[in-house]
């Protein structure tokens, strides 16, 4: 018997792109039209299931898609045109790539007949994005379009997630082809599921059970795989304290007695003491990069056992050679480990008591007595209003580390920031993307004035899309982190860090149609937050903070974690 062939579906390449996105369940696209993607934009109104957010600069589109992806766990989707449009995505792609964020960017390219001939608005987008994407495709034949988009989503969302770019020639968008979205994919070089190796889990459980001074460190992988509950259960079952990387913040409740909070060269004193004295370190879903280890030779000198759990085989031994490797998604690894986990030896109590003593000896602290508004006062109030619920998106610099260190959640939460790439200007668009994806959640955006003006044009998107995002601007009239580094590590030469000539942020807010407030005194913090929370729609608070406020603890550049410096006491 001959089965009836399904009716062939002839359509243009542009419709194939859009129909493929529908098949992938895409709900929103962050994009910008231009010459080489106009065929797609011409057909976009015929696909009403696809909401399009018009950005004001393509970098904003990439960061919005990034924030959307981190807030929802779904891949963020970006459109841009050829040449400058696509090149403007590069920083955003690199940001997502460094932090393993699933994203699919679809860029227009010039006609196949002129590719490589320096046509108008042509650039080698495949070459330019090759090192900052998980993979990329140039599509020059309409029949390759649907398979490439299918592969792009598969690659972006499986294994270690990351951004994938599909560069589609304009004539391919205009050509007609048969839309046949493939179920099966042939990718002989990509088999992430086969890479998983849980064979060492029994060994891991044994080592955890006998360790006297164990520490678990966790990174973004725990959040990406949704392993927060397993992590909490493991910590409680074994009594092992947990520290997080900057990107791992939110994976473990900081209000938990086993929390070491943040590790790394700006981590908490008690966490660094614990890492430096641990006899066993289990690292889960993290790259163990230089910001985590500081001077590598001096990192965790007393550790006899390093266990590394990561989905990416190439992370094993890249920076720290582990004794035990578990190549697996954090959730799968922790699920396999849980039934085998047991409380450790009695000496574990002494270890926890010791950590308690370090916590009292090295608490987070800050100056309050110099008459200036302190960023920590602002953030403590913000976090009180977050009620362990809100999504917090931070930019890069002092604001980021302050927001990370003063994060205090009773349960897992979402702290979104550009940890790997350290991209200034990330926060506002990422916060807007997060709000698009999670309209049910309050979204707070913490930024310095330096980073904020790098992408401030996206404020229009908040108005146009009715996105209720609250910006906490920590305005210290300088590039604070750079200024701090110059003061402490570069001979005290303050070179080009002064940002006193900046827009009046209340007028800027008004120009974009936002509401705003300005706070220069600690006693006005509460009223400004009240106004922000009371006012529907986007709101900016210009907190004019102590221009000399610094980030502490900090490990001097080139030194080991033992050398962390703390805020001098003045209270």
């Amino acid at each position, binding site marked *: 018997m001959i089965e009836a062939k399904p009716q062939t579906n002839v359509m243009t390449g542009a419709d194939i792109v859009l129909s493929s996105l529908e098949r992938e369940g895409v709900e929103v696209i962050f994009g910008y039209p231009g010459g080489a993607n106009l065929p797609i934009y011409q057909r976009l109104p015929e696909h009403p299931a696809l909401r399009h957010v018009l950005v004001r600069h393509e970098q904003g589109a990439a960061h919005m898609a990034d924030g959307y992806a981190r807030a929802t766990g779904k891949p963020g989707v970006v459109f841009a045109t050829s040449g400058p449009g696509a090149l403007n995505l590069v920083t955003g792609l690199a940001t997502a790539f460094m932090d393993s964020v699933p994203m699919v960017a679809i860029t227009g390219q010039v006609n196949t007949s002129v590719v490589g001939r320096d046509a108008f608005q042509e650039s080698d987008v495949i070459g330019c994005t090759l090192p900052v994407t998980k993979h990329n495709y140039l599509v020059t034949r309409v029949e390759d379009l649907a398979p490439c988009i299918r592969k792009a989503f598969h690659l972006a969302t499986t294994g270690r997630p990351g951004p994938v770019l599909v560069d589609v020639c304009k004539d391919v968008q205009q050509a007609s082809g048969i839309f046949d979205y493939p179920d099966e994919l042939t990718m002989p070089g990509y088999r992430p599921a086969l890479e998983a190796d849980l064979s060492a889990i029994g060994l891991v459980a044994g080592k955890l059970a006998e360790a006297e001074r164990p520490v678990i460190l966790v990174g973004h992988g725990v959040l990406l795989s949704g392993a927060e509950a397993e992590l909490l259960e493991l910590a409680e079952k074994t009594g092992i304290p947990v520290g997080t990387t900057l990107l791992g913040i939110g994976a473990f409740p900081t209000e938990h007695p086993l929390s070491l909070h943040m590790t790394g060269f700006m981590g908490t004193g008690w966490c660094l003491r614990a890492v430096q004295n641990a006899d066993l370190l289990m690292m889960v879903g993290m790259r163990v990069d230089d910001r985590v280890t500081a001077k590598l030779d001096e990192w965790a000198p007393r550790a006899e056992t390093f266990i590394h759990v990561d989905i990416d085989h*190439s992370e094993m031994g890249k920076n720290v050679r582990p004794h035990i490797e578990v190549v697996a998604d954090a959730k799968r690894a922790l699920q396999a480990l849980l039934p085998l986990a047991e409380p450790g030896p009695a000496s574990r109590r002494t270890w926890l008591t010791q950590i308690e003593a370090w916590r009292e000896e090295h608490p987070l602290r800050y100056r309050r007595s110099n008459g200036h508004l302190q960023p920590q006062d602002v953030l403590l109030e913000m976090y009180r209003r977050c009620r362990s619920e809100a999504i917090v998106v931070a930019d890069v610099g002092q604001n980021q580390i302050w927001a990370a260190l003063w994060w205090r959640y009773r349960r897992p939460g979402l702290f979104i920031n550009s940890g790997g790439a350290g991209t200034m200007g990330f926060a506002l668009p990422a916060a807007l993307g997060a709000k698009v994806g999670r309209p049910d959640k309050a979204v707070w955006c913490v930024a310095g004035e330096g980073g904020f003006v790098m992408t401030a044009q996206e404020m229009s998107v908040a108005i146009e899309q009715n996105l209720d995002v609250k910006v906490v601007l920590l305005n210290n009239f300088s590039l604070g982190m750079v200024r701090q580094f110059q003061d402490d590590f570069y001979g005290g030469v303050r070179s080009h860090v002064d940002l006193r000539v900046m827009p009046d942020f209340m007028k800027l807010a008004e120009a974009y149609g936002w509401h705003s407030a300005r706070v220069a005194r600690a006693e006005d913090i509460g009223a400004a937050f009240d106004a922000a929370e009371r006012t529907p729609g986007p709101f900016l608070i210009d907190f004019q903070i102590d221009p000399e406020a610094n980030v502490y603890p900090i490990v001097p550049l080139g030194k080991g974690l033992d050398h962390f410096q703390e805020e001098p006491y003045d209270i």
Partner: protein
Amino acid sequence: MTSNRVRVLSLVVEDDPGVLERVASQIRRRGINIQSLTVGPVGGGRSRMTVTVDAGHAEVDQVAKQVDKLIEVIEVHDITDDPIVSRELVVARVDVPEHARETFLSRLSSFGGRVVDALNGSLVVEVSAAPDQVEGFLSLLRPYGLSELARSGPVAMRKSAYGSSHK
């Protein structure tokens, strides 16, 4: 030329445009110098690459893992320490005077080489040899001018087959 820092990687890749650039870029990123790279289709939409790099074992182990991570790379093996068959093709132009020709040709054939073109005393010769014999072959040629030289770089294969790659 061969030092114990030189490692040989054998790759099977999908035969797509740009895959060479991806592999080369991944190695370049780690600051490792590629000494030679050969690539050729092996059927079934796949190509084999033999990459000789100037780097230590640990560095190459890491690079091999990162290369293996590339989507279009199907297999990667560091075959430096394995029993391998490795051959390099050398094509060279030499000027051999009439009186020296007989001696030259007999030494050429002792290397398994042959003359592929001859014009007015200028000979184009070729040899396919294991990389450690190439230097000996070149020293035979040098007295005759060696006015042009082209080397393929080694292509290599393990003597016994692999089950599958570690990916």
